[in-house]
C-alpha cells in the first residue's frame, strides 16, 4: 500500500475494503465511531465528506470536491486517527455532536466555568465509560457542548485547546 502524503487533502475511502493508503481510516469507520461513542445519528453526516491531511487528522467538509486537493483548509477538523484511541476535536464535537446521547457529562455552573478555562477536576459521580467524553452544560434552556474531556481515574481533564480557553462567568 502507498503511504500518506501529509501535505494535501485526500478523501477517505468509503469502506476499509477500498483502502489504498496504509493506516487510513474509512468514511464508514469514522461515521460508526461517532455513532458508537456518542450516539450521533449517522444522518448528521449525510452529504459530508471526510478527508485526511497531516498524519491521522480528519477533516469534515459539507460538500464534495476532487481528491487529492491542495488547500490551506477544508471544512473543520473533527477527529485524530492513527492512534489507539481516536480523539474527537472540540470543534468537531460542537459542530456535529450537539445531539449526542452517549458519553455526555453534564457539568454544573462552577464545573463548566473551570472546564472552559482548561482546568482538570475530580468528578467521582461519573459511572460511565472512561476515555473521551463530551462535556456539556445547560445554557438558554438546552444542553450545549463545551468541548472534549478525557475521563480517567475519577478525573475529568479538559482538552479545550489553549486558543479557545476562557475565564467565564459561573452562571446561577
Amino acid at each position, binding site marked *: 500500500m502507498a503511504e500518506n502524503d501529509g501535505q494535501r487533502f485526500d478523501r477517505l475511502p468509503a469502506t476499509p475494503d477500498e483502502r489504498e493508503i496504509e493506516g487510513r481510516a474509512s468514511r464508514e469507520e469514522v461515521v460508526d465511531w461517532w455513532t458508537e461513542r456518542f450516539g450521533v445519528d449517522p444522518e448528521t453526516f449525510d*452529504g*459530508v465528506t471526510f478527508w485526511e491531511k497531516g498524519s491521522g487528522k480528519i477533516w*469534515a*467538509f*459539507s*460538500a464534495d*470536491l*476532487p481528491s487529492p*486537493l*491542495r*488547500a*490551506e*483548509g*477544508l*471544512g*473543520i*477538523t473533527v477527529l485524530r486517527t492513527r492512534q489507539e484511541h481516536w480523539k474527537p476535536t472540540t*470543534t468537531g464535537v*460542537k*459542530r456535529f455532536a450537539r445531539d449526542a446521547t452517549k458519553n455526555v457529562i453534564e457539568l454544573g455552573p462552577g464545573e463548566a466555568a473551570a472546564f*472552559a478555562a482548561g482546568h482538570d477536576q475530580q468528578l467521582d459521580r461519573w459511572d460511565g465509560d472512561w476515555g473521551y467524553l463530551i462535556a456539556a452544560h445547560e*445554557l*438558554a*434552556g*438546552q444542553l*450545549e457542548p*463545551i468541548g472534549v474531556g478525557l475521563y480517567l481515574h475519577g478525573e475529568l481533564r479538559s482538552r479545550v485547546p489553549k*486558543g*479557545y480557553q*476562557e*475565564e*467565564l*462567568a459561573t*452562571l446561577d
Partner: protein
Amino acid sequence: MNPLDRYERLVDDPEAFREACDRPLPSVVRVNGIAATPERAREALDEEGVTYETVDWSDRLFRLPDGSPGTTWPYVHGWLHGQEEVSALPALALDPDPGDRVWDACAAPGSKTCHLADLMDDSGVLIGNDNNLGRLSALRHNAERLGVSNLVVTNDDARNVSLDSLGIDGLDGAVADVPCSCEGTCRKNPDVLEKWSLGHVESLVGIQKGILRRAIDLTRPGGEVVYSTCTFAPEENEAVVDHAIETTDAELVEWDAPLDTSPGVTEWEDQQFDESLRKAHRVYPHQNDTGGFFVAKLRVGDEDAVEGVSA
C-alpha cells in the same frame, strides 16, 4: 491633510459626518445562525447579565454598550461573532442560496466569509481566499469556532487565481471586499486618516480593478458579484466599478440596502461615471451610527450576452 475634507461636498450634513467620524464605534456582534437562533442568543446574554440592544435594521445584530463580547458563554460557543454592522452588508447584498458555489476573494480574517456560510446554511462550496498567509490562521480559527464546514481556504493572488483544481467552472456568486485605504474605519483606527495619501489610494486602484475583474471572470453568466470597500474614496469605489462595467459584460443591479445609504456618485473631480453607479450604496457614519462603507452589486451578463461579446 485630513482626507475626510474631500468628502464634505458629497454628504448631506458635513457637520454630522465629521462629528460621527470622531466618535468611537459601538461594539457589535452578529448571531451565527449555524449555531444558534437570535432568540437563544438573547436568552443566553440575559442569563449572563450582559447588556445589549438589537440593531433596528436586523434581528441578528446586537450592540454591546459595555464593550467586548469575547468572554461570554454565547461567544465561546460560537453563537456570536464580533463584527461591525456595515461588514454584514456584502453577504446580505450577495444573498447566496444553500448549495451555491461562492468565492470570497479577500476573506481573512473571515467575518464576512462566515456570514456567507451562515446564509448558505453551511452547505455548497464556499472558497475563502487570501493572499496573506499570516492572516489565514485567523480565518481558519474564526471558521472553526463558528462551526463553518463548507469552507475551502486558499492562499492565492486573487487577481489570477484558477478554480480548476476544485472542479469549479463557474461560480454562482463572488464577493470582492478588496484591500482599500480604510477611511471608513476611522472610528476604530484613527491612524488611517494620519497615514492617508493620494499615492496610496492610487496604488490600490490597480489591485482593486484586478480582483473585481477576476471575480467577474470566474462567475457564471447570470451569477452575481458584490464589490465592497470600507473607504469613501470614489477613486477606489465608483471608478473601479465603472471600469469593470466598461470592460466586462457585468452590469450594476439594484439592491435594497437594509439601512440608510446614499447613492453612488456619477462624477468626482474630473471623472464622469456611468449613470448606473447610482445603484451602488455609500454608507456614511452619521447615517446609522456605523463605520463607513461602499457596496455595489453586479450581475454577470446572461448566456446570450456572453455569446454576443465573443462573436
